[in-house]
């Protein structure tokens, strides 16, 4: 499951926590060319239409999506702004490398690599890899948006261990 191959189809997103480094893999196939997928990621007007959660208004604050460029966008949720920012170490025809920071936790900077692989049948596979700065950071990312966050999750696990449930 760690390696992609052409017989596997990712009609829906597949997720895997990397066993060796604090990273998360994601795969998804799209009815589009690599060029279209790249444009949906690099054109701010297109990007803002899909990036934020459903209940959220997203707006671009700054956008320079090319090698050595940078970005900042803001998602509004229940009247509260959440800002995300980063730089683009590399943007090429089939690959975007960007740093990713939630401004609420500016010290936790992740490195995200997205590659667009032409499947040859009008479809393109997106493979995203987010490398966090620690295993705790990775777990925090995976549990973000959960009703039970990572710290409550640890507390629950601690309680289970203390109970002898585990």
């Amino acid at each position, binding site marked *: *499951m760690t390696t992609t191959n052409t017989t596997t189809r990712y009609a829906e*997103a597949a997720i895997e926590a990397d066993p060796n480094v604090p990273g998360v893999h994601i795969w*998804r196939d799209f009815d589009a060319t690599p060029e279209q997928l790249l444009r949906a990621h690099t054109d701010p007007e297109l990007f803002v239409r899909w990036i934020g959660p459903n209940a959220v208004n997203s707006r671009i604050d700054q956008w320079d999506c090319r090698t050595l460029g940078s970005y900042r966008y803001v998602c509004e949720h229940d009247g509260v702004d959440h800002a995300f920012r980063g730089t683009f170490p590399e943007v090429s025809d089939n690959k975007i490398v960007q740093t990713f920071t939630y401004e609420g936790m500016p010290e936790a900077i992740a490195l995200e690599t997205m590659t667009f692989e032409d499947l040859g049948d009008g479809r393109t596979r997106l493979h995203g890899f987010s490398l966090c700065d620690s295993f705790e950071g990775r*777990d925090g990312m995976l549990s973000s*948006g*959960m009703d039970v966050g*990572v710290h409550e999750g*640890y507390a629950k696990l601690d309680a*289970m*261990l203390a109970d002898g449930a585990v």
Partner: protein
Amino acid sequence: MTDPLSRVFAALADPTRRDIVARLTEQDATVGEIAAPYDVSLQAVSKHLKVLEEAGLVTRSRDAQRRPVHLEAEVFDLMTKWIERYRQQAEERFRRLDAVLADMNDDLEQPAEEGTAS
């Protein structure tokens, strides 16, 4: 790699261990029963079980004769729930991206007979 969640993720990263966990969701089993379908030594299976045990995913009862292995479903569920929720959020985002890509196709294509994006 010291925090408990990462130990669970690492334990579940191996296909044989995932398979062992899947089988233990049905019922407890002894090491011998667990090892039976695999073309590996009892020792290798014991090693896998040790990793699962250290991650808190399985326990062994103190029944000295059989020492059946028991899946700690609550720990397993917590992890899979987190991953699944994260996956669903990503999938929702990608469905919005699907719609944006479909619009881009509409802009490009003349109303021709062939090759509408389906």
